[in-house]
Every structure is written in structure tokens, then in C-alpha cells.
């Protein structure tokens, strides 16, 4: 087992053939890095370098991507912070626990892409200006943007493509930024937090305090992580032979849990951007029929782990109605950040904030040997102090002391 830790064999995804596929760089899209630096040399923008030390990982066509370890500027996600705040809190907690410096900014807006994909009440120049305003705000602090939301991450990579290839968009955005008194800054890499978790997985595993070896896990890879501007999502020959993104799955393997496959892994979750808000019959049906029920039937997991805001929300919240209809549902849904934090001993309520989740998760905690009754009582004690005015907020110091 020790030799295989962190490895998911190719057979896990391909039981029908022994053929191996090598990376063929000649099929790769043009590498964007050269153009990013060229535009800097032409005086069009500033490139914010990934701060050292960084970890180099492999992307889809065998290129390298730099993932910063610390000095990160946390571009938060509105859906995480608003509705599943244990997601963001866990990301911060991991940084603190690993002793890494970061900034949690208030000079940050949402990427606004959820609204854009839902309603189209915006345009390419506006969307790019929002992105570049946030990038400039990060640059001004000297910290490097780490994007919490998969939608923001995918959208910002689309923005990068547009800024690289369409001079009219680039100049329109430059003029808008000038009116705001902000420089035009393009980060050397657009980095998703789950890529950071991936790059840190061995350090996370080294500080693991809870045994996950009895856990069976399914993974939902987030569409906007690897389907949009796909060339710089992380792939790894040791994970499914490099045939699927390694992000999330590699972490689960590193933590000693078992990744189980299911046939609809490529399907989206059913979020739909506008559907989750105003046409949820589609979202519910898709999430239960095409994802959760299939996972249950084919893999019977203890938990599904994913790495994007919309996916956690959709897969978690949609199960209530499925259950009412007697569907084969009932799989708790966590982000990779919460899963990693729990492995490192995080409090299920003070840190992972699991009381914001809908689908029953307590049997999972029991399998992790977590006394959820005791943990909930502790959290109730916190709430009592907050309500009585004895405390105004629960702080990181309170969490660390507990």
C-alpha cells in the first residue's frame, strides 16, 4: 500500500484495453506564456510573477505550471462565502495550519461570471474589466491571486484568451482600468485553489491526523475547471494514466482513501447558472438522475468530493427532493478543501461549517472517527456566547485554542 500511495492506476479508468497514450505536444494549443511576456515587453501590461517558492505541476499537454505555495491573495467565491462558508474557511484554515502567509482581501469583487453565464446581461469588455480590476488589486498588495471558485477560474482564463488575442478588447479594458487609476496586470498563471491543494497534498498528508483508509470516494471534476481553456488544467501520468485531470483525485489517493469510478464522471452537475436559480427542476433531475444515483449504484461511495462552488451546492442541495421521491440518493458532498482539513484534524463545525450542508453527513464523520455529537455541543457553546454578547465573533484564535 505504501508504495502505491498517491497513485491511481490507468486500469481504474480503462478496463477494456492495455494501450498506453503518450502526451503529444504537437497537438497542444499554442502556449500562452510566450504571448503574455511578449505583451509585457511591448509595454502593454505588467506580468505578475508566481512568487517563489512554487511547485511545478504538469498540465494536459505535458507543459509545466507554477503553483505558488504562499503569499497568496485569496479571490473568494460568492457562492462559497454566501452559502457554503465552510468551503472558504477550510481553505484559509489549511493555509494557517501549514504556516503560510496569505491575504483575505476586501478590495475584491465577485468575478460576476455566474450572472454572466446565467443572464448574459454583460459583455466581454465588462467581464474582462472586472477580472483585471481584481488582478490589479492583488498586484497592489504584492500577493499572488489564488482563485477559489471554478467558475471564476475558468472565466478568468477565457478573459486571458480574449485579452491575448483581441487587441480591441485589450485596449478597451486598458482604458477602463486607467479611468479607475489601476494598472493592467496579467498574472503569469491563473491558479485555482484546488491546484494549490493538489500541489500541497503531500504536506497535507504529512500532517494527517485522521485515518481515511476505510473511506470510499467518488470525484466530480468541475466542468469550468478542465473543460474551459483546457490546456492548463493539471494532469499527472500517475493518476488515471494522465487521461483525466488529476486535481482532487490525487489528493484523495494521497490521504489514503479509495477513489471509486462511475460512468457519468464527465457529466456536469446540473448547476446551469440560471437553472439553479430560476429553473431548478432541471438541476434537481440532472444532479440526482445523472450523478448521485449513478454514483450510488456503481460505486456506493461514503462521500463525493468536488472542487467548485456550484457543484458542491447542486449535488448537496438537490438530494432532498430525490429522497422525498424515494430515489437512490444520500451521498454527502464536500469540497476537497474541507476533506483535506478534516484529514488534518479540523473541527467539523468551527472550521468546515458542515451545518450549512443539507445531505446527511454524520455517518461519514463517524467513519472518520469524529465524535460529531461532542463537536456540535462545542459549537452550540460558541453560538451561545455569540448570542449572549459574551463574544462578538468566533476568531481564528478561538478555533486554534479549541
Amino acid at each position: 500500500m505504501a508504495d502505491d500511495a498517491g497513485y491511481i492506476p490507468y486500469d481504474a479508468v480503462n478496463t477494456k484495453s492495455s494501450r498506453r497514450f503518450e502526451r503529444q505536444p504537437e497537438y497542444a494549443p499554442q502556449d500562452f506564456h510566450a504571448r503574455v511576456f511578449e505583451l509585457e515587453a511591448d509595454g502593454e501590461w505588467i506580468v505578475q510573477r508566481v512568487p517563489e517558492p512554487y511547485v511545478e505541476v504538469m498540465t494536459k499537454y505535458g507543459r509545466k505550471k507554477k503553483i505558488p505555495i504562499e503569499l497568496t491573495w485569496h479571490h473568494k467565491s460568492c457562492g462559497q462565502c454566501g452559502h457554503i462558508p465552510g468551503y472558504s474557511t477550510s481553505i484559509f484554515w489549511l493555509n494557517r495550519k501549514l504556516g503560510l502567509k496569505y491575504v483575505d482581501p476586501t478590495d475584491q469583487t465577485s468575478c460576476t461570471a455566474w450572472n454572466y453565464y446565467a443572464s448574459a446581461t454583460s459583455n466581454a469588455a465588462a467581464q474582462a474589466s472586472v477580472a483585471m480590476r481584481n488582478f490589479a488589486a492583488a498586484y497592489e498588495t504584492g500577493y499572488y491571486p489564488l482563485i477559489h471558485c471554478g467558475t471564476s477560474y475558468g472565466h478568468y482564463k477565457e478573459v486571458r484568451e480574449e485579452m491575448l488575442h483581441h487587441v480591441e478588447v485589450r485596449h478597451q479594458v486598458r482604458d477602463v482600468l486607467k479611468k479607475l487609476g489601476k494598472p493592467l496586470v496579467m498574472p503569469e498563471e491563473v491558479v485555482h485553489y484546488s491546484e494549490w491543494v493538489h500541489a500541497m497534498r503531500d504536506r497535507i498528508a504529512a500532517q494527517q491526523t485522521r485515518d481515511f483508509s476505510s473511506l470510499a470516494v467518488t470525484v466530480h471534476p468541475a466542468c469550468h475547471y478542465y473543460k474551459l481553456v483546457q490546456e492548463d488544467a493539471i494532469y499527472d501520468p500517475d493518476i488515471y494514466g494522465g487521461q483525466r485531470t488529476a486535481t482532487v483525485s490525487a489528493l484523495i489517493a494521497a490521504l489514503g482513501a479509495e477513489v471509486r469510478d462511475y460512468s457519468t464522471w464527465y457529466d456536469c452537475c446540473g448547476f446551469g447558472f440560471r437553472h439553479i436559480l430560476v429553473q431548478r427542476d432541471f438541476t434537481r433531475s440532472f444532479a440526482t438522475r445523472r450523478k448521485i444515483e449513478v454514483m450510488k449504484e456503481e460505486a456506493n461511495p461514503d462521500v463525493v468530493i468536488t472542487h467548485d462552488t456550484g457543484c458542491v451546492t447542486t449535488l448537496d442541495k438537490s438530494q432532498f427532493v430525490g429522497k422525498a421521491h424515494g430515489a437512490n440518493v444520500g451521498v454527502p458532498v464536500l469540497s476537497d478543501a474541507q476533506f483535506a482539513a478534516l484529514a488534518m484534524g479540523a473541527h467539523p463545525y468551527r472550521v468546515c461549517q458542515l451545518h450549512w450542508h443539507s445531505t446527511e453527513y454524520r455517518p461519514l464523520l463517524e467513519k472518520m472517527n469524529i465524535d460529531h455529537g461532542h463537536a456540535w455541543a462545542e459549537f452550540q457553546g460558541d453560538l451561545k456566547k455569540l448570542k449572549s454578547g459574551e463574544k462578538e465573533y468566533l476568531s481564528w484564535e478561538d478555533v486554534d485554542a479549541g
Partner: protein
Amino acid sequence: MGLFADKYPNVAFEEKSRLWEEVKADPRFPTYLYGCYECGICVAACPSARFYDFSPRKIAQAAAREDVELIYEQMNDDVWNCSQCFSCNRCPRQNSPGGVITILREVAVRNGLRSAKQALEGYSRIIYKIMGTGTQVSPDMLQPDAFPDWGPQVRDVSADLDAWRRALPPETLHTVSTGWQVDDKTIIELYLIWHHTGVMDMIAEVDEGLHMILSDVMEEKLEEAGYQM
């Protein structure tokens, strides 16, 4: 003329062509459509095709053929079914049918098509939230009457919302009406972006009431900060 019966014969061909020219003029369009093999891979990957009478292949085909009547029909009847998941980026022709749909939607909104207005009914408060506050999803949106299908847990959140927010260790997350605490200066910069990129004009096309409310909120803050719009 297109291959199929024209579903909107009362709309002039010239008007449909004008909208199509707007779609093609989008700088992203050439990289979203390179033709179409009609292989159907996009349909196999498409979640919306499973639950609606909807096909990314048909959208790519109509666009590749420049069938302006069918495109006009799709712009009205189909595009709002798309989940914008971009599973269709698997296209072997390197198309992004989902990307074409993004542009079709944008043109529909910019031109105030009735179907776009209908699709956005009930959605205004969300546009208001994102454009007005800088974060799209706020904790106080979690109300049981808004999400009855999410079960009793939503009631637990809303019942204890203020205390639950104060029980979040990151200092930026104690907010209830925004996802996190956003600086005033940041909001002003966001308002300037909406004004300078024509987004306010798009809102005026699809929802006059929302445009009025947003303008009031923005103008007040912008004036306070010394900007005249």
C-alpha cells in the same frame, strides 16, 4: 431561405440578419465556430440535451450555414436552455457551441428580445445583487420560501443567520447581505466598469425598472465619490 419552416415570419428577414451580423461581429465568434462535422459529440456530452428539446449540434449547424431564420428561432426558443457547462467544448472541430450560445444570448439581451425579457423574469433581484453589491450570492438569500426544495436545512440557516455568520473565523465573512465584506472604493470601481462598458445600457433594454433602481443606487454613491455620470 433556411431548411425549416420559419417560426417567426412576422419578424423581417432584415432584422434577423442584422442580429446575426451582430453575433458574427463579436471578436470571440471566429474562435467559437470553425464549421461542423455534424458528428453529435456535443449532444452526447450536453446535459441540457438530455432534459430539453435542445441540441448544441443544431446551434452549430445553423450558425455554420448562416441560416438566419433558424438562428433567430434558436435565439428566442433555445439558448436559455443551455447550462453553460461547456461540456460541448469536446467538439472534434474545436467549436464551442456553448460559447456561440453565450454570444447569441448577449445579442438577444442587448436588443431587448421579448424572449430574453421573459427568460430573465424573476431574475432581476440577482442582477441587482451582483451589479449593486459586488457579490452575487449573499447569505440572506437562503430563505425557506425561496428554496423550499432544498429541505428544512435552509430554515435552520435563515433562523440563526446572524449568529452563524459571526461564528465564521475569517473576519471578512461576518456579512449577511453580501458574500463577504467589500470596500466602498471597490464598489465604486465596479460601478464605473458597468457604466464605461455599456452594461447599464443592456440592462435598460431588458428591464427598465431594474435599470432605474440600479442607476439611483449607483449615481448616489458615484456622486458622493466625486464622479458625475
